[in-house]
C-alpha cells in the first residue's frame, strides 16, 4: 500500500499528493507543534518537512517501516533542529523537567480499564516514566542528557524508558 503510494510520488504523480497529504499531514503538523509550541512556526516547518518528504519519497524503503513513521520521524527531526536554534527546546525541556503532571498510580493502571490508544496509555504511565519518554521524544534529549538534567543515574533513565516503552508497545494494534 505504502509502496504503491511512494512509487507514484517518486514518479511525480500529483494525484498521489492528496492521498499522501491526508495520510501524514496531521501527525506531521501536530508533532512539530508539540515541539515548537508556536502555530505559525509549526506551519512553516511542517511545510518544509512535507516538501522534503515529497521530494525524498523515492529514497524511502517501505520494508523498513510505514510511510507515516518515516514522515513523523522527518518532521520531528526538523522540528528539533528548529527548536535548538530558536530556544524553544530549552523552554520545553525546562517545562517538561520541572512540571510533573499528577502522577498516575500503579493501582489506577491496574484497576482501571486498559488504555484504548497509545495516547491513553501514555497518560496512564507513571509520571517519571512519561517524563523521560516526553523529554526524549519532544525535546530530543539523549539518555545521558536526561540523567544530567533530571539528576538521576543513567541506569534509572534506561529503566524508566524501557518500562514505559514496553507498556506503550503493549497497546499497539496487531499488524
Amino acid at each position, binding site marked *: 500500500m505504502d509502496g504503491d503510494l511512494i512509487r507514484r510520488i517518486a514518479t511525480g504523480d500529483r494525484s498521489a499528493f492528496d492521498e499522501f497529504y491526508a495520510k501524514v499531514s496531521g501527525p506531521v503538523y501536530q508533532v512539530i507543534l508539540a515541539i515548537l509550541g508556536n502555530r505559525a512556526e509549526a506551519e512553516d516547518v511542517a511545510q518544509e518537512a512535507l516538501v522534503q518528504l515529497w521530494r525524498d519519497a523515492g529514497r524511502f524503503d517501505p520494508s523498513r517501516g510505514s510511510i507515516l*513513521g518515516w514522515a513523523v520521524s522527518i518532521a520531528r527531526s526538523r522540528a528539533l533542529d528548529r527548536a535548538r536554534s530558536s530556544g524553544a527546546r530549552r523552554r520545553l525541556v525546562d517545562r517538561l523537567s520541572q512540571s510533573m503532571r499528577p502522577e498516575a498510580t500503579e493501582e489506577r493502571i491496574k484497576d482501571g480499564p486498559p488504555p484504548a490508544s497509545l495516547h491513553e496509555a501514555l497518560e496512564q504511565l507513571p509520571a517519571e516514566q512519561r517524563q523521560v519518554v516526553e523529554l*526524549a521524544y519532544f525535546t530530543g534529549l539523549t539518555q545521558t542528557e536526561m540523567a544530567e538534567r533530571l539528576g538521576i543515574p543513567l541506569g534509572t533513565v534506561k529503566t524508566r524508558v524501557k518500562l514505559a516503552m514496553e507498556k506503550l508497545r503493549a497497546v499497539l494494534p496487531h499488524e
Partner: protein
Amino acid sequence: MSDHGHFEGLAALYALGALDGADLATYEIHRRECLPCRRAEAEFDRVATGLAPSGAAPESLKAKVEAVLPKKGGERSNIITALALAAVLLLTLSMFVEVQHLRDVRREASDLRVAQERLERRLESAMLKLELTIAEKESLKRAIRSFSDQNIALRSDLDKVMALTSKGRRAVMTGDGGTGLVYLDPAGGGVVFFANPKAPLKPGEHLVLWMLKDQEALNVAHCDEKAAYGMSPSAPAGMSAAVQKVAISVETDPAVGSPTMSRVLMIGDVKAE
C-alpha cells in the same frame, strides 16, 4: 535484566533517538545480528510514531505546500511521456524513411553495378576490336607500303621495258639473286616484270623479254622452261635465238585469271641489247 532484556531497553531508547555514547555503538553492532531486537525496535518505532499528538493540520498548510511543489507533476510527467512517445514515433518514422531510402540507394547501386559491368564488358570488347583494328590498320599500312614500293619498282621497270620494247628492241634481265613477277599488261601490250623475292634467278642467268604487237599471242600462263626458251608459236622471229638460260616458273593468279597475270620466277636488271 537479562542480556537480551538489556538490548531491548537500548532498542527502546534507540527508537526514541535517545541512545548515545558507548550504548549507541554497542547496540548498532548488536542489532545487525539480532533479529528479535530488530523486531522489538520496529515495534518501538511504531510507538514513537504513535506518540505524535493527534489532530489535523491547519487548512492553510496544504495550499502552502502545493505552492512550492513542482507544478503539476503528473501533467509534467504526462507531457514528458507524450514528448518521449513523439520522439520515439519521429525516430521510428525517420528510421523507416532511412530504411526505404537505403533500399532505394542499394537498388540504384545494384543497377549501377550491373550497368557498369555491362559497360566494362562493352569497353573490353571495343578495346579488343580497337586493338584488332589497329593491328589490321598497321598490317594494311605495311601492305600498302609494301605494295606501293613494289608498284614504284614495277613502274620503274615497266617504264624501262616499255621504252625498250616500244622501240622493237629486246630487253634482257641479268640475274643477281633476286626474283620477279611477269605481268602481261593488256593496256600497254607488253610484258612487265618486277621483283619477286621467293624464287631467285641465279646470278648470270638471263631472261629475255620481248614486246608483242599482239599481246594475245603471248600466253605466259602456259609458259614453261622449254616454252620460254622457244616461245616458238608466238614469238617474233629471231627472238628465241637470243634467249639464253632462263628459269621460269609460272603460276596463274586465280583472282585475276589466266593469262592476264602470272608469276614467273626471274631476276635481274632490264638491259637493252
